């Protein structure tokens, strides 16, 4: 240990120690010389003999240094110094190499950070691997996947596999809570949770306390826990907030605590939304009567596994369903919470991770190629070093040092890009991808970046480095020698590298092409409504309008005022904008008997007159609602085409009656077009519209306005107009309808843009690779071309020959690429929409793009070749 320390110290005092040894050695030589002189040798002979006896001064020094310091360390330093010198000399190459490695590594570590956050890192809860998402059996719609309170209580009481079962009320609405105290009015989003929800997740309030049993009773005291973000933003992190009262929806609510900054409900359970308030959800008869409401989470008890929990809950669910005919039924579907959270984005992320890997391979191939070209031009230098006694191992190490230094520099650049990339991703709040806000470059990502850089350097440096020992000393040192035999094998490798670059680029292009086509298809989907030139604003009636009559007056007044604004074409009210809420109600046709299996369900939307028109939903038959559809008039309903056909196949639905959401029958007065309300990719299913003036089952009221005015002008006009009606109208949230669509397609767009970016990068690299190889081969063949031109070959012939050579390479690459794409495209099937994985259009288009790019990359050197002056070319031989 001591000697190791001494060696390390010595390595840092190199200069001093060298000087000291110089003196010591000089004294030794002096003494030896004197001895030789005494033996009768002449002066110069005496000195020469002394040096021989020592074995050469340089060798003695080297031996001493070796014993003294860290020989490998020293020579690595030497390699590094040499590397920096050569790299500085070739600044163009260095810049280019660092740039492409940097871009590649930047992309890789950004994607890695996302993958790490979403797929690898555990959820930000205590022991998250034991948390299970308990869904109900329904396939479509949130109502189907949620569970009635009674079953949750049953599970809490009887399940042995879970140490706890809790949940939240899934049907909260964004902006359902209007805060009117402590500053300007503002709409906040709140979610109701079961009492044990936070303790189940292992999250403690940062300030204050969680809910008491009393507060979790029906009609208990109104309390709330607020998010850290809201506390900071609106209450300036006031530590005395606990115990104070807020005015929410005109009712006083006591703040009992603040959640920690690390707890972000939205990020995990509702990507793209911000939850500000948490309030207790009573597990009571009353909430049970609301039907399927709970999104459930369970914590596996010690010793229980997901499989045993599955088995147990399915039995418990079946028993409970059987025992109680009045319930909605419970058929539990269990999966790990982490899978539930990352589930939908998982395939896209895996595709991106693979894509970025392929990009890195292309980067490596490209740099390998460039380095090979460099070793070719550096043959003479390498030969000289070998002649001066550099060992082969040392030469190989030197080349590898160069490539690793390059890629580490690129890695540093990449790291900067990754910091930038992750922080801009984390701030994309409109993106509905879970946990995205938590994405940042952490220690794991740093380690990944470093490893990626070293590995990249090794991979792209290995082929050129292993080529070094093959360089023939003799040929290289000869004035005109070109090392022709090695030249061949090197050309072969370079061609193979280019072919593989083209193949990889082809795979990425096809993948990106398929995603782009899918995206275009999704955007082409007939939404059923026209988002252009329509905008929405929350205008829930406040507590002054408590009775139905008062509320109806409010609706009449609001609609009248807004419709009077010049430039407004139509206006309507609804409680459920498309691509937002998700629920289903029973909707049996009058006079039909249904079994439990085929009992008709429909997506209900409470709407006013003018809504259908303002949304641009076509009215197919019958009439729209009017202001005269009131509690006093006959209950009416509008259905979509799908529902009309499903409930009364082959009959006219108009005039028939439906028992929508209760026992009251409503007469069908209109049939409208289908609206994609769940997702752009999903068909509508049954939809029904219930007049807003005939129900009080409303949680929110959105005003939809279609107008020719620009958005800011419209927003101002509407706010001014409505002020007399509601002076507390929050200022924010006048949204164009297009943002709803944008948000719904955001994960798809995210994947598509990234993959397209990778593909473009790959295409550029591949074309550079082709260009480099072809122009190298042209410059190597300058004399040959000169001779052929002197012998009468035409420019056209020469160019054709070179372009043909290019196309052969590209063609081989594309052949491999198409074959690989054909297989790999199956893997992204789940991300596609409206195109098949073997979509011939995409394949042909991408091949055409590649061919064009390859032809261009080959044409430039070809043109240069055809301009070679035969005389100069031959003379330079």
């Amino acid at each position, binding site marked *: 240990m*001591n*000697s190791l320390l*001494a*060696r390390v110290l*010595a390595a840092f005092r190199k200069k001093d120690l060298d000087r*000291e*040894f110089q*003196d*010591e*050695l*000089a*004294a*030794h030589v*002096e*003494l*030896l010389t*004197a001895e030789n002189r005494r033996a009768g040798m002449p002066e110069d002979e005496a000195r020469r003999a002394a040096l021989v*006896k*020592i*074995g*050469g*001064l340089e*060798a*003695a020094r080297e*031996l*001493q240094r*070796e*014993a*003294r310091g860290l020989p490998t360390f020293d020579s690595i330093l030497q390699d590094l110094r040499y590397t920096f010198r050569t790299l500085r000399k070739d600044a163009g190459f260095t810049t280019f190499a660092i740039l492409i490695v940097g871009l590649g590594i930047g992309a890789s570590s950004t994607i890695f950070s996302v993958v790490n956050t979403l797929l690898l890192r555990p959820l930000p809860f205590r022991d998250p691997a034991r948390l299970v998402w308990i869904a109900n059996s329904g396939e479509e719609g949130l109502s189907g996947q949620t569970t009635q309170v009674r079953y949750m209580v049953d599970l809490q009481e009887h399940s042995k596999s879970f140490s706890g079962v809790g949940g939240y009320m899934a049907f909260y609405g964004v902006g359902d809570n209007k805060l009117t105290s402590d500053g300007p009015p503002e709409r906040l989003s709140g979610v109701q949770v079961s009492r044990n929800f936070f303790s189940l997740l292992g999250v403690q309030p940062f300030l204050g306390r969680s809910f008491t049993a009393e507060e979790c009773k029906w009609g208990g005291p109104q309390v709330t826990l607020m998010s850290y973000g809201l506390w900071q933003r609106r209450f300036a992190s006031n530590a005395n907030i606990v115990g104070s009262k807020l005015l929410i929806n005109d009712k006083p609510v006591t703040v009992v605590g603040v959640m920690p900054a690390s707890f972000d409900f939205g990020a995990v359970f509702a990507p793209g939304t911000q939850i500000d308030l948490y309030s207790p959800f009573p597990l009571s008869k009353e909430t049970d009567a609301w039907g399927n409401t709970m999104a459930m989470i369970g914590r596996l008890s010690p010793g229980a596994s997901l499989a045993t929990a599955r088995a147990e809950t399915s039995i418990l669910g079946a028993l409970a369903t059987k025992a109680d005919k009045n319930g909605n039924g419970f058929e539990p579907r269990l999966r790990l919470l982490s899978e539930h959270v990352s589930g939908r984005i998982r395939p896209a992320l895996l595709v991106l991770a693979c894509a970025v890997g392929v990009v890195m391979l292309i980067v490596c191939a490209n740099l390998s190629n460039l380095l090979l070209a460099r070793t070719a031009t550096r043959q003479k230098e390498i030969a000289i070093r070998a002649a001066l006694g550099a060992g082969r191992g040392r030469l190989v190490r030197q080349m590898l040092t160069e490539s690793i230094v390059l890629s580490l520099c690129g890695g540093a650049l990449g790291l900067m890009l990754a910091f930038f990339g992750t922080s801009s991703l984390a701030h994309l709040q409109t993106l509905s991808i879970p946990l995205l806000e938590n994405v940042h470059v952490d220690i794991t990502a740093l380690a990944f970046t470093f490893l990626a850089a070293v590995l990249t350097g090794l991979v792209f440096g290995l082929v050129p480095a292993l080529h070094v020992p093959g360089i023939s000393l003799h040929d290289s040192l000869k004035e005109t020698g070109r090392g022709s035999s090695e030249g061949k094998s090197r050309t072969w490798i370079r061609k193979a590298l280019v072919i593989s670059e083209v193949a990889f680029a082809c795979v990425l292009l096809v993948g990106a092409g398929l995603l782009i086509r899918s995206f275009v298809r999704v955007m082409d989907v007939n939404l059923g409504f026209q988002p252009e030139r329509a905008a929405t604003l929350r205008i829930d009636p406040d507590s002054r309008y408590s009775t139905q009559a008062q509320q109806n007056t409010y609706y009449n007044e609001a609609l009248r005022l807004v419709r009077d604004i010049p430039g407004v074409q139509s206006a309507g009210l609804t409680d459920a904008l498309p691509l937002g809420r998700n629920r289903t109600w029973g909707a049996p046709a009058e006079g039909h008997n249904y079994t439990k299996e085929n009992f008709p369900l429909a997506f209900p939307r409470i709407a006013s007159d003018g809504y259908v028109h303002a949304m641009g939903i076509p009215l197919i038959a019958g009439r729209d609602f009017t202001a005269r559809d009131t509690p006093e008039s006959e209950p009416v309903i509008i259905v979509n085409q799908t529902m009309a056909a499903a409930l009364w196949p082959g009959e006219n639905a108009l005039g028939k009656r439906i028992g929508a959401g209760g026992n009251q029958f409503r007469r069908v007065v209109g049939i409208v077009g289908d609206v994609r309300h769940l997702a752009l990719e999903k068909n509508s299913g049954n939809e029904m519209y219930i007049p807003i003036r005939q129900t009080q089952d409303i949680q929110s009221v959105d005003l939809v306005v279609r107008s020719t005015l620009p958005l800011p002008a419209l927003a101002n006009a509407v706010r001014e107009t409505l002020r007399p009606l509601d002076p507390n109208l929050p200022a924010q949230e006048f949204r164009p309808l297009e943002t709803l669509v944008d948000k719904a397609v955001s994960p798809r767009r995210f994947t598509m843009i990234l993959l397209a970016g990778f593909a473009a990068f790959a295409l550029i690299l591949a074309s550079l690779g082709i260009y480099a190889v072809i122009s190298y081969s042209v410059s190597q063949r300058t004399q040959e071309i000169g001779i052929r031109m002197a012998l009468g070959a035409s420019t056209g012939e020469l160019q054709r020959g070179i372009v043909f050579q290019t196309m052969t390479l590209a063609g081989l690459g594309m052949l491999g690429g198409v074959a690989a794409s054909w297989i790999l495209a199956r893997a992204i099937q789940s991300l596609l929409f409206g195109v098949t994985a073997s979509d011939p259009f995409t394949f042909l288009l991408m091949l055409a793009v590649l061919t064009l790019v390859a032809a261009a990359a080959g044409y430039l050197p070809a043109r240069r070749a055809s301009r070679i002056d035969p005389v100069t070319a031959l003379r330079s031989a």
Partner: protein
Amino acid sequence: MPDDKLDLLQGTLDLMVLQTLDTMGSQHGYGIARRIEQVSGDLLILNQGTIYASLVRLQHGGWIAAEWGTSENNRRAKFYSITRSGRKKLARQAENWDRLSAVIGRFFQTAAKGAGE
């Protein structure tokens, strides 16, 4: 190179240097090299330059110490002397060496006898 000269066995040079410093006291590199050549009766091929690598090794191990002084011809020279732990190491190594050479010697004797029968 003459056949009757011996190559140094790996690691034996360090031992010889230690032994030399133990018997001669403080010495510079040249003195040590001279002494080793004399004792070996000029049978060893000693590349005098290699002495210094050995000296550095011993110094790092803390078995010898170095000090600048003045040589016979009035030049600045580095003088080395053995340390206490150096003496211990020397004793240990000498014993090892004795045992090893005894074993090797016995091995060759038996082998010679065996071959004679």
